[in-house]
């Protein structure tokens, strides 16, 4: 069964690649950049031509900056892989690394072939219907290619959030299918509602048209990933041994906190591409957005430290690491439109919120989320989106803007929850009925590394797992 499915997937990928290749043969050669007149002084050049040189220069600066930012965001995949590996047990390390590698790889192909078109193609009001595989764009210097790679790494960020919440108990084949579906449909369709007019500016994106603001994706990327993660964790149920018979949560320790810390630093670094890069233009706002981003992350870490120290009696490293990420997720939506003081306030709330949220999911809802992905990305994505309605210097409630903007932000965030959580439940229910969603109890005890992959992460080390 598994083999058959794999062969089908492989065949689809290869065929669609071949179809695109055939289409490519019909289109004319790409045209490279126009040439600037050589050896001419500025005074000699007519004003119109000077204008066009300036325009081209700006376009190239935009391309360079957006690509650099995309590469930074790509590096966040390494951050997610390290955070999730560090926060889980040694016996599942290979499995979580494979999931991180494959959700990016499967997601990249799916987003190129289908997702990008649904998100940014000419919209029918609900989703885009053109530009699948960037059809119609000539190979070469076209801006669309830069935009595609930038949007691909964003889509992959949403996809990879889910693996942490579903860690240590999910069947690998089911996760592969999930990876394809989020990048094919779930992420791009919601994305088209909020961001569909970023490329074709007269596209009808209903949320954006209402004034919904999500600069770099607190909702579009992080909440979507976070709420899907919640659906996955709910459908899977907790890991064996997570809850005592009387319902009290038990701690299941992560096996490598240095790796988790490295992952958080990598994510923080990558976020300087995520937020400042979302200008997709080389201009003066890059530095400002980097400042608001950094302030919120720092405030998030500090306040998570304070919250964990006062609630849990000790300054807890895994909570503090989550706090930095919570600040980053929260500032992702409002980073371009709030004051530095606003950024600190938003990050501070995020830092406290993530600690409370982790405890809430653990103790009250009893949803087992090994790395805190739902609290970091879902809950703080929601908070970040709402915070713009409060703190936006232009139109925010605290700046005399009234409730209109806040209302739109609430609507957008609620829509994201309904869409991602609802489809997530359906998707994971479907997978549980077909491929199976969860590994056997025996395999879970022994570890997914041996059960799913026949491979140990730490061969040669004496790593013992007694849980």
């Amino acid at each position, binding site marked *: 069964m598994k083999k058959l499915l794999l062969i089908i997937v492989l065949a689809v990928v290869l065929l669609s690649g071949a179809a695109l290749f055939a289409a490519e043969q019909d289109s004319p050669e790409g045209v490279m950049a126009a040439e600037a007149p050589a050896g001419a002084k500025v005074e000699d050049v007519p004003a119109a031509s000077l204008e066009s040189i300036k325009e081209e220069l700006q376009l190239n600066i935009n391309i360079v900056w957006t690509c650099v930012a995309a590469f930074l965001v790509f590096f966040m995949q390494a951050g997610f892989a390290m955070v999730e590996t560090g926060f889980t047990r040694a016996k599942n390390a290979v499995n979580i690394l494979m999931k991180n590698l494959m959700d990016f790889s499967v997601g990249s192909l799916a987003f190129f072939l289908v997702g990008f078109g649904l998100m940014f193609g000419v919209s029918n009001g609900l989703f885009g219907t053109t530009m699948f595989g960037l059809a119609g764009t000539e190979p070469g210097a076209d801006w669309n290619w830069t935009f595609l790679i930038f949007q691909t790494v964003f889509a992959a960020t949403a996809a990879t959030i889910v693996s942490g919440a579903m860690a240590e108990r999910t069947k690998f084949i089911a996760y592969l299918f999930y990876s394809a579906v989020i990048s094919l449909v779930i992420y791009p369709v919601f994305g088209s509602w909020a961001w569909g007019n970023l490329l074709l500016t007269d596209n009808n994106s209903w949320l954006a048209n209402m004034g919904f603001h999500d600069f770099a994706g607190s909702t579009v990327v992080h909440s979507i990933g976070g709420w899907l993660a919640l659906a996955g964790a709910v459908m899977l149920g907790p890991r064996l*041994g997570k809850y005592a018979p009387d319902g009290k949560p038990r701690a299941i320790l992560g096996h490598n906190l240095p790796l988790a810390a490295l992952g958080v630093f990598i994510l923080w670094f990558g976020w300087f591409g995520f937020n400042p890069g979302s200008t997709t233009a080389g201009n003066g706002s890059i530095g400002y957005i980097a400042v608001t981003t950094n302030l919120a992350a720092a405030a998030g870490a500090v306040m998570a430290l304070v919250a964990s120290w006062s609630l849990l009696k000790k300054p807890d490293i895994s909570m503090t690491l989550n706090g930095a990420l919570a600040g980053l997720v929260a500032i992702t939506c409002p980073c371009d439109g709030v004051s530095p003081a606003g950024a600190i306030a938003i990050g501070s709330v995020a830092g406290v919120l993530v600690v409370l949220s982790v405890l809430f999911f653990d103790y009250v809802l009893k949803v087992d989320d090994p790395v805190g992905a739902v609290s970091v990305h879902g809950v703080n994505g929601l908070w970040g989106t709402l915070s713009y309605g409060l703190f936006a210097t232009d139109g925010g409630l605290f700046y005399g803007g009234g409730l209109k903007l806040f209302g739109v932000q609430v609507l957008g965030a609620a829509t994201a929850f309904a869409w991602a959580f609802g489809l997530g439940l359906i998707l994971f229910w479907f997978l549980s009925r077909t491929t199976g969603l969860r590994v056997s109890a025996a395999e879970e*005890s022994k570890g997914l590394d041996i059960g799913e992959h*026949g*491979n140990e992460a730490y*061969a040669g080390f*004496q790593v013992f*797992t*007694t849980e």
Partner: protein
Amino acid sequence: MKLIIAYIQPHKLNDVKQSLYKEEVYKMSVTNSLGCGQQKGYHESYRGVGMEVNLLKKVRLEIAVNEDFVDRTIKAIIDGANTGQIGDGKIFVVDLAECIRIRTGETGSKAIG
């Protein structure tokens, strides 16, 4: 005095600890060990090359007890570690010649209890 040595599945350690606790056996030493018995190990592969792993990870428990605790300790270990599957482990009971508490110099049953 007896020394009870048990080899159990690593992931059953928590259950065994709990059932020992219920039987009021609070003292034990735990070490990691590798071993093989009837359970045939598992197949691993690395970069396409297969290998049989036959030494499995086990946990070794050592508990020194007075005579009246022998049966309940054994029962507790079985309660905690039994799944009915091959690989659940074994218990060995050996006579213990002497036991000395380093702190006080007490010997025999007093030192154990």
